[in-house]
């Protein structure tokens, strides 16, 4: 099991960041966004497109050749574009739905449709073959008994810094505070002078940028696939629910636990040759914990006064 610790930390980090972004979006907008995985994949696919060498032809439609920009520039551009994409989703789709009082279930079904639609756009443009970023291969080294590549370590550090920054942003900035206020009650926020629509749009941007970031590091650690976001979506939901949906700290913690457990269970002896089943143990544990604490580990029973 110990040999899986490094991979466990990495998957834990990915699921943790993705869970924070999903749960913040849910908290503020009350949308259970099944297309969140596709925003994750968008970050990874865009980065692949920007950074791959122009000669490489990973794209299904050979009309588009990659741009060959540096990896850092590509990542930043992709994250920004994910933010723009989130804003467009809010302005063109979810805000009109909200203003027309569509029910939660209708909106949920729409996000499922959106997820399928976007995923197949990726399939069309980026092909079904897994692709890797143009980064040099690195060997794993020993860090305090944990096997990681130097790049893995960089990812862990950058990811942790991002999570801390997100926490500080939500806790101490005026905008972060307003997001938490709208999460508690958008009506009360409005009559306190906050433009809730503006805060909701910002939340879409912020959450989508975080999702895009998650996709990029997932691409660095593993590879880029058209359905990479969808494959991890279940774990993200599990992480958010486990921590207590609507609490950012809980989502971070829950996501990390789920990611770790999934990866560590690969190391169990009876899992040999059955790694496809690795989600099972973590999810069974989630169900068990929720039976004991239905509100999640950090969720509070009382949400509405």
């Amino acid at each position, binding site marked *: 099991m110990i040999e899986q610790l490094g991979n466990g930390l990495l998957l834990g980090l990915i699921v943790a960041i993705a869970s924070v972004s999903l749960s913040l979006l849910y908290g503020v907008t009350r949308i259970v966004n099944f297309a969140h995985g596709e925003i994750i994949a968008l970050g990874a696919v865009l980065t692949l497109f920007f950074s791959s060498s122009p000669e490489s032809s990973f794209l299904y439609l050979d009309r588009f050749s990659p741009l060959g920009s540096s990896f850092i520039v590509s990542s930043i551009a992709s994250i920004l574009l994910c933010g723009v994409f989130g804003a467009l989703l809010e302005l063109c789709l979810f805000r009109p739905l909200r203003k027309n009082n569509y029910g939660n279930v209708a909106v949920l079904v729409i996000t499922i449709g959106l997820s399928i639609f976007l995923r197949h756009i990726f399939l069309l443009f980026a092909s079904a073959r897994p692709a890797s970023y143009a980064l040099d291969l690195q060997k794993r080294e020993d860090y305090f008994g944990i096997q990681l590549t130097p790049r893995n370590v960089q990812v862990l550090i950058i990811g942790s810094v991002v999570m801390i920054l997100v926490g500080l942003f939500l806790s101490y900035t*005026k905008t972060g505070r307003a997001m*938490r*206020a709208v*999460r*508690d009650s958008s*009506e009360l926020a409005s009559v306190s*002078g906050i433009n809730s629509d503006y805060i909701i749009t910002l939340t879409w941007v912020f959450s989508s940028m975080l999702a895009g970031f998650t996709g990029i590091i997932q691409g660095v650690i593993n590879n880029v696939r058209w359905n990479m976001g969808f494959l991890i979506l279940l774990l993200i939901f599990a992480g958010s629910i486990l921590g207590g949906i609507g609490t950012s700290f809980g989502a971070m913690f829950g996501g990390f636990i789920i990611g770790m457990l999934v990866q560590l269970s690969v190391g169990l002896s009876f899992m040999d040759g059955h790694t496809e089943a690795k989600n099972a143990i973590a999810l069974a544990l989630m169900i068990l914990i929720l039976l004991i604490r239905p509100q999640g580990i950090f969720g509070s029973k*009382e*949400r509405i006064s």
Partner: protein
Amino acid sequence: MNKAIIEVNGLAAGYVKGLNILQGIDLVIKEKEIISIIGPNGAGKSTLLKAIMGLIPISGGRLYINGNELANFKSHELIKKGIGYVPQVANVFPSLTIEENLEIGLWTNTKNSKEGKKEIFEMFPILFEKKREKAGNLSGGQRQLLALGRALITKPDVLLLDEPSAGLSPIAIDEVFNSINEINNKGVSILLVEQNAKRALSFCDRGYVLDQGKNSYTGTGRDLLDDPNVIDLYLGKL
């Protein structure tokens, strides 16, 4: 004659299209006044406040703030026009601390944030003691004080209060009414919706009795208290 801050003429509004809960309400709140609205459960008192605050669609009538007609306005814009509102339920942000709740009220006016908080904490020392606690952990009475504080910190000219004494102990009710009096003495007009009709009518300058989405009686608090019809219908035998 004091000038009107809020004037409502023939207001019709409801939660769903084609079903008006309010069917032509008239109401005036003037500078420095305390007015109260009483009426049976379901009369539309809370709905009236929500309509004034732009939280539900208005289908007819006119609404004036300081003499200017409002049309197609957004809730959050009313704060800048000097209107504060404390809803009947869900009137604090439970997952935010006391201090953060007050800071949310300062969203539109960050200039005097220190001063604003200090004033509220002086008025309600209990909030200062608990300023780092989550509002969700406050007692009902403390919540009402916080809700008042959150609305007051925006420095409103008029405060709309929806049953601020609901569910409170007699002592807490006295505290809330004293605070309202104190706020009014500083020149803030008050619109008070109350279940305790006798107390509200003896407290206010003028009162409105609502029934089934319409004004049924209007007058000074004293007159309404003595009106045999009002006694019969809403106050019960004395």
